[in-house]
C-alpha cells in the first residue's frame, strides 16, 4: 500500500542545512498498522509529512497504491498532536469539515459522521462547540474528522501525547477497535512504547539525526490486545524491553548494554 523508497529529506535553514531523514526504505501492506518510534527530533513528523504529500523528499520516492505522492490526496488523512478543531463549528460540523473542503455533498455524509461520533461515544455532544469538550473528547472528534472521508491511509502524529495517561489508554483502546473495524493502513507516530506495542503490527525504530531506520520489530501478539491483562505477558515484555534498549541505546554504549542482558528496563509495566 505504502512504499517508501530510499527517501531522504534535508531542510535548508538560515543556519545551514538540517538532514532530517536519510535513505529510509519501508514497505507497508494494505491494512497494516505501523508505529514509528524514536527520540525527539529524529524526523518522525517529517516522515509523516512526506507520506501525506505536505512536503517532498530531497531524494527517493513515496508511493501510495502504486502512484507517487506529489501533493495531499483525498484517500490519505492526517491527525495531529493538537485536535485543531475550528472553535466556531459544532462537533458534527467539525467532523464534516473535510467533506465541505472537498466540495462533496454534506447530506450524503452526515449519517456517517453521526455513526463515527457514536463509535467514540460522542453522540450526545454533536451539537456542542469544541470548547465545551475535554481534551480527550476533542481528540476523539479529530479522529472522527480524519475518518469521515473513508481514507485508505491514516497518518497520526503523536495524536494522544497531549492527553493524560488514563485518557491515552482509553483512546488507544478505541483506536484499536476502530482499526479492526475500518482497516485503514495506518502510520502512527508515538513516544510511548506501550502504545506502540498495543497497537502496531510492526514498530519502526528511527535513530537520531539524521533519521534512519534503526530496526523494525514485529509485534506478533493476537488482537484484541490490552494494556492491563495480557495473556501474552512474556512476548509483550520482551518486545517492550527490546524497544527500550533500542531507544535508550546511544550508538557507542551498545556494548555496555549488551554486557548487562538481565537488566529490566525502567518504567516497564505489564
Amino acid at each position, binding site marked *: 500500500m505504502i512504499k517508501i523508497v530510499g527517501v531522504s529529506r534535508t531542510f535548508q535553514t538560515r543556519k545551514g542545512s538540517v538532514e532530517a531523514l536519510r535513505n529510509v526504505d519501508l514497505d507497508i501492506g494494505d491494512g497494516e498498522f505501523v508505529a514509528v518510534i524514536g527520540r525527539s527530533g529524529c524526523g518522525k513528523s517529517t516522515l509523516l509529512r512526506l507520506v*501525506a504529500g*505536505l512536503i517532498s523528499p530531497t531524494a527517493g520516492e513515496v508511493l501510495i497504491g502504486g502512484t507517487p505522492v506529489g*501533493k*495531499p*490526496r*483525498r484517500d490519505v*488523512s*492526517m491527525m*495531529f498532536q*493538537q485536535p*485543531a478543531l*475550528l*472553535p*466556531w463549528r459544532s462537533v458534527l460540523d467539525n467532523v464534516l*469539515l*473535510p467533506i*465541505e*473542503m*472537498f*466540495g462533496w455533498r454534506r447530506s450524503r455524509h452526515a449519517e456517517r459522521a453521526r455513526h463515527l461520533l457514536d463509535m467514540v461515544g460522542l453522540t450526545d455532544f454533536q451539537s456542542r*462547540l*469544541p*470548547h*465545551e469538550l475535554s481534551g480527550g473528547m476533542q481528540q476523539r472528534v479529530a479522529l472522527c474528522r480524519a475518518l469521515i472521508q473513508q481514507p485508505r491511509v491514516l497518518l497520526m502524529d503523536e495524536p494522544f501525547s497531549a492527553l493524560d495517561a488514563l485518557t491515552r489508554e482509553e483512546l488507544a483502546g478505541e483506536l484499536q477497535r476502530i482499526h479492526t473495524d475500518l482497516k485503514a493502513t495506518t502510520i502512527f507516530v508515538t513516544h510511548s512504547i506501550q502504545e506502540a506495542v498495543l497497537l502496531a503490527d510492526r514498530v519502526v525504530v528511527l535513530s537520531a539525526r539524521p533519521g534512519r531506520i534503526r530496526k523494525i520489530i514485529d509485534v506478533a501478539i493476537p488482537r484484541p490486545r490490552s494494556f492491563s491483562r495480557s495473556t501474552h505477558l512474556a512476548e509483550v515484555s520482551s518486545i517492550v524491553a527490546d524497544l527500550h534498549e533500542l531507544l535508550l541505546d546511544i550508538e557507542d554504549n551498545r556494548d555496555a548494554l549488551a554486557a548487562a542482558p538481565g537488566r529490566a528496563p525502567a518504567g516497564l509495566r505489564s
Partner: protein
Amino acid sequence: MSVSSDTRSISVIRARFSAAGLPTLGAASALLAWWTATTVFNVSSFFLPSPADIMTAFRKQPEYLLRESWVTMTETLIGFGIAAASGLLIAMVLTASSVIQRATLPLLVALNSIPKVAIAPLLVVWMGFGQGPKITLVLLICFFPVVVSTMSGLTSTPADFGELARSLSASWWRVYFKVRLPWALPQIFVGLKVAISLAVIGAVVAEISNPDRGLGSVIVLSGQSFDTPLAFTALVLLALMSVMLFYVICAVERLLLPWARAISA
C-alpha cells in the same frame, strides 16, 4: 441538595449583579458625588450645573434636543456603516496577497497617523454645509481601526489550521471563507468597537467646526449664550449615545460569536 441549589442561585445572582448591577452602582455613586459636590460647595450652575439642573434643561426643550441627537446619531451610523463595510472589503483585498499587503501597509499606517480632527475645517471648504462633511469625517476616523484589526485577524490564522487545510488540499477560497474569515471575526469586532467610539467623537468634532445641526452645534451655540446647563445636557446625551452604540456592538458580538470569549479566556 437545597444547600447546593442555594449556592448556585447565589452565584447566579452574583454574576447578574456584576454584569448589570456593578455598572449601575458605579454610575449612581458618581452621579451622587457630582450632585453632593455641586450642592455642598454651592457651585453656580453657570460654572458646573448639578444633575438636577441638567434634567431641568432637558425638560425645557426635549424635542429640540432629541431631534439634534438624532441628527448626530444618523451621521455617526452612516459614517460608521460605510467605514465598516469599506474597511472590511479593503482589508480583505489587502490580505489576499502578501505582496499587496507589504506594498500598502506602510502607506496605511502613514495615513492613519494624520490627525483626522485637523481635517474637519478642510472638509467644510471642500464639501460645504450639511451632513456630508460630517459623515465624511466619521468615515475617515472609523476606517483605519476596522482595516487594521481586520487585517491582523485575517493574517493570524493558527498554523495548526493552515496545516489541516493543506492536508485536505482545500481550495484557496474555501479556506478563506471557512477558516480564515471566521477566525478573524473576533478581531474584526475589536476594530468595530474602537470605531464606534471614535465615530461619535468624529461626528461631534465635525459639527463643532461647522455648527448647523446636531449635538455638537448645540454645544457651540449654548456656549455662545452662556447656557452651561444646556451644553452639559448635550454632553450627557452624547455620552449616553456612545455607551448605547458600544453595547449594541458588544451584544451583537456575543450573539454571533459565543465561542470567541471561551477561547480567548
